[in-house]
């Protein structure tokens, strides 16, 4: 039942996306052009990577505010390794693989810190990850003394800009990632455990679910997803930046929640998150193309998220009433 409901929620948002396209298409010049749809797609992918990770954490009933800091720290450290401007491995053929590996390891480490704080030290996720976010992003800025790092190797930049046939290279990263998490949630023991922990951690524990490890996994996976997004963002900008992703948190959580994942845990799906991220990206893109002033963009975005949540709440209430 619960899964059916979240599935409905996901499809409902897909419908919303279609409506958005139908409304904006004729009004906004260039909106339905293939170039623009490619833009939407390439903006969607890194956001989706972060959002998919966040979905895992929200399903366990937690929240991870530190994803933005992971994006930033991974970006500068990865760039440090491979930049032609005095990077550790500048010019080496190993530079790109080593940098990518390091970026993923950053995700692993920060995720472990989050996960242990929540599972082992029993800190409330909101504050634990808020503190980690503040620390890690401060650390990233301190490391670079505010400077951005350019001179990234061509091979790395291709991850952001390259394409294979019609598909952007990033799709080859995010597609399998999303599919993997989807299969994880729907087909594996670990997936069921994630839902169980979010549904009722006490019951899960009594039932032999290794609750602490499951929670730890969710935070680690979430941070690694953020690191993947960091790779894409960094490649796309051809720059390692200590403030990369500083402002994406609200988009990420907005996307996941619009996609029908519960903030209280136990409910959510990757498909829903895909739709949610698509919706946010389309909205952003459409508002951008309209060239509205920045305050109008803020207001419209806020109002649309609220309206989406309202429709979702109403729909759910109707379903419950039945």
């Amino acid at each position, binding site marked *: 039942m619960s899964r059916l409901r979240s599935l409905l929620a996901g499809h409902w948002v897909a419908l919303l996306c279609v409506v958005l396209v139908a409304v904006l298409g004729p009004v906004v010049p260039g909106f339905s052009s293939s170039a623009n749809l490619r833009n939407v797609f390439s903006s969607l992918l890194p956001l989706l990577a972060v959002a998919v990770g966040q979905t895992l954490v929200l399903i366990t009933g937690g929240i991870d505010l530190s994803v933005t800091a992971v994006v930033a720290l991974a970006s500068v450290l990865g760039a440090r390794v491979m930049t032609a401007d005095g990077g550790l491995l500048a010019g080496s053929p190993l530079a790109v693989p080593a940098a990518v590996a390091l970026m993923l390891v950053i995700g692993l480490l920060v995720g472990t810190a989050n996960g242990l704080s929540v599972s082992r030290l*029993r800190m*409330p996720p909101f504050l634990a990850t808020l503190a980690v*976010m503040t*620390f890690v992003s*401060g650390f990233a800025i*301190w490391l670079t003394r505010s400077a951005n790092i350019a001179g990234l190797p061509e091979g790395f930049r291709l991850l952001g800009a390259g394409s294979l046939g019609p598909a952007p290279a990033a799709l080859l990263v995010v597609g399998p990632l999303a599919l993997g998490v989807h299969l994880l949630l729907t087909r594996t023991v670990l997936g069921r455990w994630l839902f169980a922990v979010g549904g009722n951690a006490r019951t899960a524990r009594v039932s032999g679910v290794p609750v602490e490890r499951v929670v730890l996994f969710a935070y680690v996976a979430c941070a690694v997803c953020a690191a993947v997004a960091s790779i894409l963002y960094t490649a796309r900008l051809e720059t390692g930046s200590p403030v990369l992703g500083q402002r994406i948190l609200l988009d990420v959580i907005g996307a996941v929640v619009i996609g029908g994942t519960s903030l209280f845990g136990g409910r959510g799906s990757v498909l829903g998150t895909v739709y949610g991220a698509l919706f946010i990206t389309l909205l952003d893109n459409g508002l951008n193309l309209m060239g509205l002033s920045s305050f*109008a963009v803020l207001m419209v975005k806020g109002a649309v998220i609220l309206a989406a*949540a*309202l429709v979702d709440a109403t729909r759910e209430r109707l379903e419950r009433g039945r």
Partner: protein
Amino acid sequence: MTRLVTRWPALGLLVLVMAGFSLGSPRFLEVPNLVNIAVQSASLGILATGMTFVLLTAGIDLSVGSLMFVSAALAGKLVVGGGSLPAAFAVVVVAGLIGGALNGIAVTRLGIKPFVVTLSTLYIGRGFALWLTETRALNLPDSLLTVGSARLAGIPVPVVAVALVLVGAHLTLERTAFGRHLYAVGADPEAARRAGLPVRRLILSAYALCGLLAALGGAVAVAQLGAVSPTFGRDREFAAISAAVLGGVSLFGGRGSVLPGVLLGALLMQTVENGLVIVNADPYLYPMVLAAVIFVAVLLDSHVRGTHP
């Protein structure tokens, strides 16, 4: 003392932090600096008090910083246009109440989760205020600064304001039916409903109060600044939530206190920022030090009070 510290980990940390800074600079423990800390904590203390009302109902208000900005912008426009300070103050109060009440209505009547509601109003409010101010800074007349830096019986006005708010909120929460009902609603809304409490109205009032205090906290800040810039209030919600939680307020509702809880939380955060300037720390260290203090405080708190659900 030991008992006090185990009961209020923020107090122990505050003592530690103060001891550390006083070693770093002899000026830190001088009375004028302690007064500075009190003045600088005023706005945050008021915001965190408002946040406490909402957190007690197991809600959250992410729009606090945005509401600060909206009410300050409205009142600022009025003053710049020649309105009087009392009129501007009335605007602040009304704008805060209305903004908070709108959050409350969305939460209680529309059935949307507080996180999503206030996330949306965060965007909407900021957009609205930027539109109002044409994204320019509003420079307010000196008369406002005079109020902000005045002293009543030797006590700076912002400190008087925060003291009134803290004591008022404390009495409201501990000694009135409304306050006790908020605790009941936060811990178990279903049982509170069965007991005949007007649950929706209580939650709505909590958000309205939070909005009011956000606006007041903004006013206290503006009275000290003399200006409202487009970044006014940005990210203050996180500071307010942190201060409240450092003071022992639970994010899961029904637990926490304004005195000494929120007071300690706000003082701790502001003391760290103050001390770092006094000892002339590397600017890059600020966020890391503050994050570490918050982390330790929350860690201690969750161990003293048992685990979160």
